[in-house]
């Protein structure tokens, strides 16, 4: 009788401990998820700020004078007549009139 009683007690305690462990793990994972959400928000904000700064520094209004005066080097695309979308629009400025003949690649 005592054995059965003791066994039952031990079982109950073990189940409770398991439950507590699962609860703790659950809370820890929730904390991590919340922390990641927070980090995502922080990174999103940092990304927005850096992107804003990049766009301000690379705004056409800042660069146009330098490009037109020749102060800033301009990358000439190899195929001058090309209707494909620009991959790096910031650098693809043109000063010369495109022709149907492909131009030679600029010397480095």
């Amino acid at each position, binding site marked *: 009788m005592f054995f059965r009683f003791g066994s039952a007690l031990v079982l109950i305690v073990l189940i409770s401990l398991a439950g507590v462990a699962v609860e703790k793990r659950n809370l820890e994972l929730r904390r991590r998820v919340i922390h990641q959400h927070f980090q995502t928000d922080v990174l999103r904000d940092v990304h927005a700020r850096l992107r804003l700064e990049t*766009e301000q520094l690379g705004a056409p209004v800042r660069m146009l004078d330098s490009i037109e005066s020749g102060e800033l080097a301009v990358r000439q695309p190899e195929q001058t007549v090309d209707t494909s979308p620009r991959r790096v*629009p910031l650098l693809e400025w043109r000063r010369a009139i*495109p022709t149907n003949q492909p131009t030679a690649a600029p010397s480095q």
Partner: protein
Amino acid sequence: MTSNRLTTSPYAGKWRSRLTICLLTAVWIVLSGRLVFLQWIGSAQLAEKANRQRTYLQTISARPGDIIDRDGRLLATTVNARSLYVVPERIADPEQIATELAEALNADRQSLLDRILTHRSKRFLWIKRRLEESEAAVVRALNLPPQVWGFRKEYLRRYPQGSLASHVIGLRDIDGVGHGGIEERYDELIRGRDGRRVLVRDARGRVIDVNDDHDELPHHGRTVVLTLSAVIQLYAERELDAVMTQWQPRTACAIVLEPRTGDVLAMASRPTFDPNQPVNVAHNAWTNTAIASMYEPGSTFKPFIVAWALETGRIRPTDRFDCEQGAYKMGGRVLHDDHPQGWLDISGILVKSSNIGMAKIGERLGNEELFNAAIAFGFGRKTGCELPGESAGSLRPPDSWNSYSTGSIPMGQEIAVTPLQLLTAFAALSNNGRLMTPQLVSKHIAPPPFDDVELTNTSSRETVVSRTVSPATARWIVEGPLRDAVRVGTGQAAELSDYLVFGKTGTAQKIDPATGTYSSEHHVSSFVCGAPANNPSVVVAIVVDDPSVGRTHYGGQVAAPAASRLLRKVLIHQRVPADGEPLRAAQR
């Protein structure tokens, strides 16, 4: 004996025990009844009350979406900013706090102090919203007592390109509401939808738990992709600035359009404003003259009438008209040409911009067909572009016209158009007669992490609104008279050596408000053009309202040079090959 009888009576203690039992039973009944009330009858109300005390609904703001140009350049974005508040009831020394904050924020100390004192009993008072990072750092460095102040994060709208395309973009105010332009038109889309979170608080108001079951994530605003190109927009704005400096007009605007698709590559208006600093702005700077101002188009309207007359068979390309050497009595009035002409063919009428020639074509068409021509080319109604505040122009119904109208309409009077309407109609001629809806929005996309998924483009991209004239007629107009108008006509200032430019000048007299008649001193000078003539890729319009420098204000003089410079830059930027071969062939 008697006392014994009393103490030994079987009924002696019974009434006390019964009383006790009754009392206990009564107490038990009361308690039970209260329990039943609390747990059953009033449980819902009490649970609700407890919930209200414990829980707190926190709004999670949605981040407004970006606006970018066709190449991905950022035109409008949102960053987090700190807004400063104080707790007036906890401020021990309002004067010192006001002094320190006024110095840090470069604000008026007395008004700040007055506000703190006025709201002395309050627990929250905004001091300044959406501080710059530098300002927030200065406030932190003050080391004010922590219980009297704090920062709240709010979203701050920034426009990294400054005043570029400000009329098209619009601006978002301090409360996150869009005003004007795309910010207003797509306000709900850009603003997104706020989320919410249920927090559990203890008796002291401290958050002890987050109730995930009732969380609602915010739907951040979507990114709107425009058809504008920031580079072409910059070219347009620079040319406009040059026009404003040289001619000192009231207003001016420039529009660049792709005729085949209807995409608006640039739309600029002067005067303008900087959406980052929308204070001390001139009252007329808020108006986007490209869509909201209407004017009589003058000679720029003539090609549409000629095209319609050809299409309906009322005239033939080889017909000739006597332009009466510059004076023609039509009904009760005498029409004049600026430069007297004799007999001219259709092409010559457009090239020389003869009002008399156009009036005679108008007589052949009649009022009904003149009206149909205007309607076919989109006049008298909005173009359907996405910007708010667009004007439909003014086109009276033909039953209110008279014999004067037959002579006036063909030369672009008695009708009012917006610059965008004019260029859209011109683009139809350049596009084999197909009238397109001008488009400013290409698509909108979801914010990260879903931005690689291009969701349904809900912008109403109508391809072709209507067919105006046949491709043959449109091509004849463009490659013939309109090309010649630039080559040898009134638009010679727009001729380029490397591209075949076609176009039409306009010099429309304005109504003098004092006399109600046409003024000889106030004009709207305009020029619409495109290139290459054999395969139009780009069309440009520049409209200058009331240039005030000098005595003559012809469209060919005021607007044409700027329009052709802009056109050339756009063609080069769009990698349109030069017309060297065809140009040399044409000159032989």
